[in-house]
C-alpha cells in the first residue's frame, strides 16, 4: 500500500504556499499533520500531483489570548492543545474533546486546522466549533475572510474553504461567566472515531435554564445543532425527566443517521439520545448554580 508519486514543496511563508496552491497546471493538496491525508494517499483514495506542506511555515501553530478570545493557529497539534493551560482554562469543552481524538501518537501530529478542513462527520472538533461559535480565519489569493462555524461545515468531508484557500486560525470567543460544558461520545474502543457524540453548554439563572446548546456529531454529514430542543430548555428547571425527554426528541428528530459496519441508523439514533443526555447533564452539573 504505497501512494502514487507526487511532488513535494515545503514553503516557508503563507504567501508562497498560496502561490503554489493557485497554480492551475498541477493538482495540489495541502499537507498538515498528515493523519488523514497520508492514509488516503496510501490507499490511493487521494492522488494529488503535488503536496504543499504547511509544516515549515513559522507561527501557524500559536495558541494565544486575544482580548479574552482564544485564537489557535491551524497548525497547532492536538497534543499542544491538550496540554495548553490556556485552553483548559478558557475553553474547557475544547480541552475535554481533544482527549477523545484518536491516540496520543496521532494527536502528536494531527492539527486543529487539519481536522476542521477534513470535516469528517464523526470528528469531535467540528461539533465543538459549532457549539462554541468559533470563527475561521481563512486566506486566499484575494485576501483574508472570516467564516462562522455554522457556515463552515457544508457536507460530508466538505467545507466552505475554496480550493485555493488556506485556513490560518480558529477563534473561540470568550465564554460567559457561570457556563457549564459537557461532552460525551461512544465508540467501540477509546480513540476510535465515535459512533455518536455530543457537546453541550448550559447556563442557569435562579435554578432555571437561561440557555443551553447541544451539538451532535457522527449522526449526519455535518455537526447537528439541536435547535428546537435548545429552545425548549430555556426557562425550565433541569431534571432527569426533562433531560430524558429532550434527549429522546433529539434522537427521534435526526434526519438520516448513517448506517455502517459499526452501527445501524436505528442504533445511532439510540446512541444520540444517550450522548445528548450525558452531555447535557454534565454541562448542568458544572454550571454555576446562582
Amino acid at each position, binding site marked *: *500500500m*504505497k*501512494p*502514487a*508519486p*507526487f*511532488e*513535494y514543496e*515545503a514553503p516557508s511563508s503563507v504567501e508562497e504556499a498560496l502561490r503554489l496552491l493557485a497554480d492551475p497546471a498541477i493538482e495540489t493538496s495541502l*499537507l498538515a499533520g*498528515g*493523519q488523514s491525508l*497520508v*492514509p488516503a*494517499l*496510501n*490507499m490511493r483514495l487521494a492522488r494529488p500531483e503535488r*503536496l504543499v*506542506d504547511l*509544516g515549515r511555515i513559522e507561527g501557524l501553530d500559536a495558541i494565544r489570548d486575544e482580548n479574552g478570545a482564544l485564537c489557535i493557529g491551524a497548525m497547532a497539534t492536538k*497534543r499542544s492543545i491538550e496540554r495548553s493551560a490556556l485552553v483548559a482554562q478558557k475553553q474547557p469543552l475544547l480541552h475535554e474533546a481533544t*482527549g477523545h481524538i*484518536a*491516540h*496520543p*501518537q*496521532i494527536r*502528536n*501530529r494531527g492539527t486543529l486546522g487539519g481536522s476542521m478542513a477534513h470535516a469528517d462527520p464523526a470528528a469531535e472538533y467540528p461539533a465543538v466549533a459549532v457549539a462554541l461559535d468559533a470563527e475561521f480565519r481563512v486566506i486566499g489569493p484575494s485576501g483574508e475572510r472570516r467564516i462562522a462555524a455554522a457556515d463552515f461545515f457544508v457536507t460530508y468531508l466538505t467545507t466552505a474553504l475554496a480550493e485555493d484557500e488556506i485556513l490560518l486560525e480558529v477563534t473561540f470567543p470568550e465564554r460567559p461567566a457561570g457556563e457549564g460544558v459537557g461532552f460525551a461520545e461512544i465508540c467501540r*474502543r*477509546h*480513540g476510535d472515531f465515535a459512533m455518536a457524540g455530543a457537546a453541550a453548554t448550559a447556563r442557569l439563572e435562579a435554578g432555571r435554564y437561561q440557555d443551553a446548546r447541544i451539538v451532535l456529531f457522527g449522526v449526519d454529514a455535518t455537526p447537528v445543532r439541536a435547535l428546537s430542543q435548545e429552545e425548549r430548555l430555556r426557562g425550565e428547571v433541569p431534571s432527569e425527566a426533562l433531560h430524558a425527554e429532550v434527549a429522546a426528541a433529539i434522537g427521534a428528530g435526526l434526519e438520516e443517521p448513517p448506517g455502517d459496519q459499526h452501527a445501524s441508523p436505528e442504533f445511532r439514533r439510540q446512541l444520540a439520545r444517550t450522548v445528548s443526555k450525558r452531555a447535557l447533564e454534565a454541562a448542568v452539573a458544572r454550571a454555576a448554580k446562582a
Partner: protein
Amino acid sequence: MSPTRIPVRLRVNGRPAEGLAEPRTSLVDFLRDELDLTGTHVGCEHGVCGLCTVRVDGVAVRGCLMLAVQADGAEILTVEGLASPDGKLHPLQEAFAEEHGLQCGFCTPGFLMALHELIDDEPNPSEEQIRDVLGGQLCRCTGYAGILRAVQSAFAKLGASPSTESGA
C-alpha cells in the same frame, strides 16, 4: 515520469544519517530500506496498528503517516537506540522480557517507542494515561495483561509508582 529523489538529512539514534527519498516514501520505509534500520515494523500503513511508531524530535509518531522528506533535519529515535551502547537493555525492554510483554514480538518495537515517550513525559502516569498510550498500539497475540504488567514493572524499575492495577 521518473520520480525525483530528494536528499534527506537527519539524526537517528544520536548519529547523523542521510539518504535519498522520493516524496511519497514514508519515514518508516526510509528507515528500513534506505538506512537499514529494520527494527521498526510496518503493518497497516494507515495509522491504526502503531507498529511503525518512532520518536521524532521527542514525540512518538506513526512512521507510516509521516513522509521521510517531512523528517528532514529531525532527531529520530528508533528501537535500535533504546539499549545502551554496551548492549544493556533499557529497563522498559527488560520489563517486557521479564513480564511476558511479548509473544511473537512483531508489535513490540511500536509499544516500546510509544511507552518510551510516556516515560520521559510523565514520570508518574495515571492508569488512564497508560491505557491511552496502549490503546494506540495493537497486539494480536500476547494479550494486554502481560504488557500492562511490563509497563508497571518498568515504571517501578525507574523509581515511579504508577497507579495501575493489574488485569487489563
